[in-house]
């Protein structure tokens, strides 16, 4: 089958061009100086005392966020998997909210709440001492942990669900008290999963740009992402330095993914399968139940209510100088976003355009990639998967910087730098892994006998694909499309690095209004953005469910 080979190699070449070339541009920029190979510049950048300090603080931030988000996530995971609280499914939806709130919006909410004479001090003047404590590393760690903990919670919850209660009962029968059973039974079984979750949170934290660029900047706490951004956008521009730091960050991320792979192979236990796998839910005693509810309430209060309250109130305040007081509320900010000038409407349209076009292109490309990879042998398949999942393993700021450098250098051949199309391209690269993962998982649910039946009945491969495979994977494609649409709609890193002139997106509009325009208008757009993402999630969810019937 020669056609198959050709298609495969074209696909690999295309993916490599799309994803690997930008990455290579970064390394090249870091080690070539005026056309000469010289690693000394990169080394000099990294060891510059300021940058060495920044690398140290990035890693410290990562570690602290892992610790704090564990403290929040582990008890919740236990409560929602092994106690009767697991029956309340609406908690699953509630803990989606931090995910629906982009980190830059949440941290703006926190700033408005905590700043001197801000919302908190207007409500509780006596608490003003907290403000000084908040505008420090501690506050940054808290805000980032409150954003990222649902990831760890979900992972640990699923892990705990796979530990059958029979093991726990056996321990109890043999006389081990509750604390011993947690320590000697549950914990050893879950260390592997926890290690993976912790590494994931660590990578997410050091890759995050939104919170450090808003709250971190406020307290003068520089990390990888903000320094990479600064060297690439504020005069004097130093792409070499930016690229050197990006290379180090890539190295750290890849190292962590290797560690995670190693742990997955060595330290996770196969607990699913066999008899007696059921989890029996523990009924909590009354005081324990109340304590558990209080813990959940605190987590909800800090991770959702404070930032959302603060953003919403700020969007409704008329004169910022008078703060929260009767008569100083208005909906004018919402009207002004769309009527005062064309910027608000345009930002909204541009974001929708980018979200729709990138989700559609990524879905098509992802489906093609997975389909071709599946008709190939193991090695080629791994190659295709490896390249197309790479963007998920790397911080988006690194990829965007790479795209910026690469397309600037080939401007003569492909003149898309400085147009909206480079943004579409960047979004597709960033979000391709989502569609690839969704399509892969729906492929794995198709029994090979279905395809075989179609072929035996005389269908050509094309016919079988169109009439059997495609309808079966369409739900996966749609889910991937939906995820991409929602995340792309509020993407911040790409537009803040390579948006062409005249082009604001929802995220850069909010940022710009918050930093240099009207905070009220910025927060009004933020509320609209959160509502829009939530509503589109609900609508698309419904549409997919209907298609299923």
């Amino acid at each position: 089958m020669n056609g198959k080979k050709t298609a495969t190699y074209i696909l690999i070449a295309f993916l490599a061009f799309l994803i690997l070339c930008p990455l290579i541009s970064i390394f090249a920029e870091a080690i070539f100086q005026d056309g000469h190979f010289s690693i000394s510049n990169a080394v000099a950048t990294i060891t510059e005392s300021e940058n060495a300090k920044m690398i140290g603080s990035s890693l410290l931030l990562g570690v602290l966020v892992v610790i704090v988000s564990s403290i929040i996530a582990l008890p919740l995971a236990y409560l929602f998997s092994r106690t009767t609280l697991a029956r309340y499914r609406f908690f699953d939806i509630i803990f989606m909210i931090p995910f629906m709130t982009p980190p830059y919006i949440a941290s703006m909410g926190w700033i408005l709440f905590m700043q001197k004479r801000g919302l908190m001090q207007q409500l509780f003047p006596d608490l003003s001492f907290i403000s000084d404590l908040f505008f420090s590393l501690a506050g940054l760690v808290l805000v980032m942990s409150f954003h990222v903990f649902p990831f760890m919670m979900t992972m640990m919850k699923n892990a705990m669900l796979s530990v059958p209660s029979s093991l726990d009962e056996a321990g109890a029968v043999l006389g081990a008290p509750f604390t011993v059973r947690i320590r000697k039974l549950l914990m050893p079984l879950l260390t592997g999963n926890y290690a993976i979750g912790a590494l994931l949170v660590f990578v997410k934290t050091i890759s995050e740009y939104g919170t450090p660029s808003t709250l971190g900047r406020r307290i003068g706490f520089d990390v990888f992402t903000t320094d990479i951004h600064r060297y690439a956008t504020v005069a004097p521009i130093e792409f070499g330095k930016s690229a050197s730091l990006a290379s180090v960050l890539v190295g750290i991320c890849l190292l962590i993914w290797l560690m995670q792979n190693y742990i997955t192979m060595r330290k996770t236990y196969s607990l699913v399968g066999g008899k007696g796998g059921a989890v029996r839910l523990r009924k909590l005693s009354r005081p324990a139940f109340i304590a558990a509810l209080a813990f959940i309430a605190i987590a909800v209060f800090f991770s959702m209510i404070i930032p959302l309250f603060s953003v919403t109130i700020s969007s409704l305040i008329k004169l910022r100088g008078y703060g929260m007081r009767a008569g100083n509320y208005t909906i004018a900010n919402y009207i002004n976003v769309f009527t005062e000038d064309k910027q608000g409407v345009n930002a909204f349209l541009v974001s929708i355009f980018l979200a729709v076009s990138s989700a559609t292109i990524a879905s098509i490309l992802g489906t093609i990639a997975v389909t071709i990879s599946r008709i190939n042998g193991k090695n080629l398949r791994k190659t295709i998967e490896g390249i197309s999942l790479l963007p998920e393993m790397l911080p988006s700021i690194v990829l965007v910087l790479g795209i910026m450098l690469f397309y600037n250098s080939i401007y003569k051949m492909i003149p898309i730098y400085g147009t909206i199309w480079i943004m579409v391209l960047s979004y597709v690269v960033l979000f391709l892994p989502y569609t690839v993962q969704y399509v892969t998982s729906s492929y794995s649910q198709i029994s090979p006998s279905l395809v075989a039946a179609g072929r035996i009945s005389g269908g050509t491969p094309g016919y079988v694909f169109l009439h059997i495979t495609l309808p079966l994977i369409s739900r996966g494609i749609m889910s991937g499309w939906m995820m991409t649409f929602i995340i792309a709609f509020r993407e911040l890193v790409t537009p803040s690095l390579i948006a062409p002139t005249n082009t604001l997106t929802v995220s850069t509009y909010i940022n710009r209004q918050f930093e240099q325009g009207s905070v009220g208008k910025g927060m009004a757009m933020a509320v609209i953005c959160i509502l829009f993402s939530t509503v589109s999630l609900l609508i698309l969810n419904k549409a997919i469910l209907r298609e299923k019937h």
Partner: protein
Amino acid sequence: MKKAIIVLTLLLSVLSLSAADNGIVTVYMPSPAGLANKLAADFEAKTGIEVRTFQGTTGEILARLETEKANPVADVVILASWSDGLSMKNSGQLESYVPKNADKMVPGWIDSDSTLFGYSASAVGVIYNTLIYTELNADWAELADSQYKNDIAIPDPELSGACKDFVSGYVNAFGWDTFEALAENGMIVPGANKAALEAVTTGEVGILLAGVDYNAYSSIAKGEPLAIYYPASGTVVNPRPAMIMKAAPDMDNAKAFIDYLLSDDAQKMVTDAYLLPGRTDIEYSNRSTLDQIPQIECDWDAMMAIASDSAARINELCER
């Protein structure tokens, strides 16, 4: 569903590609965004030339120009810092042109080679929150007094061109003592002009030094609890230079845009935005006039030489 998506995609791509009839002019300009948008819309309506703008702080605009050196995009660049304009001229990036109405401009707001056109100007002053201080008229140095401890802020001079020119002008005339004392007194740097104004509006600090005046006037007009004054020892009035790039892809449109900036209508919009007009024959009454503002003697060449380092020094001093 799929069809709707395709239609939407096509529609938006058409939207984003539509070009005007008489070509385009690409203008990079700093805040206020409202003024920038109005000037662009009016110019478009009058000439049919599409205006593409990039709006950012002086720092962001300079960075963008640097990034695009290989593939120039900008025709006209407007900055909020005269000294940054001079350094662009010194590096040979600017085209010389004698615009209409050049003779009516404020003396000194057009350079000897006719490359920098100060079509508007701002001054920096002391802006204070009237809910915290009912009356204030302290001079710059007096704000280092302990009664204002931890209640003073300054815009980031590396982001705000107006503040940068003030710092270099003040240091050039009086040295570093005042700023060192202010930093010692707990002065913070909340961000660019608007972020700094926000800090004094919400009362995060009571006093903002070197805040741009037009921002304050427009907030006061809205009813925010703010007031502004120009300290007695003087401030820097800084013309905001509009410049034509030598590498402008649309040179004729660039020149037309400069002519437009000095026209009656554009100058009227400038004063409506609470800026000082670039022409002497334009009347305005919504703010302090040029002759009412006490000024520091400005040696722009000397200031340009120290501007960037001084701006960085302020940030170092105020870092806690």
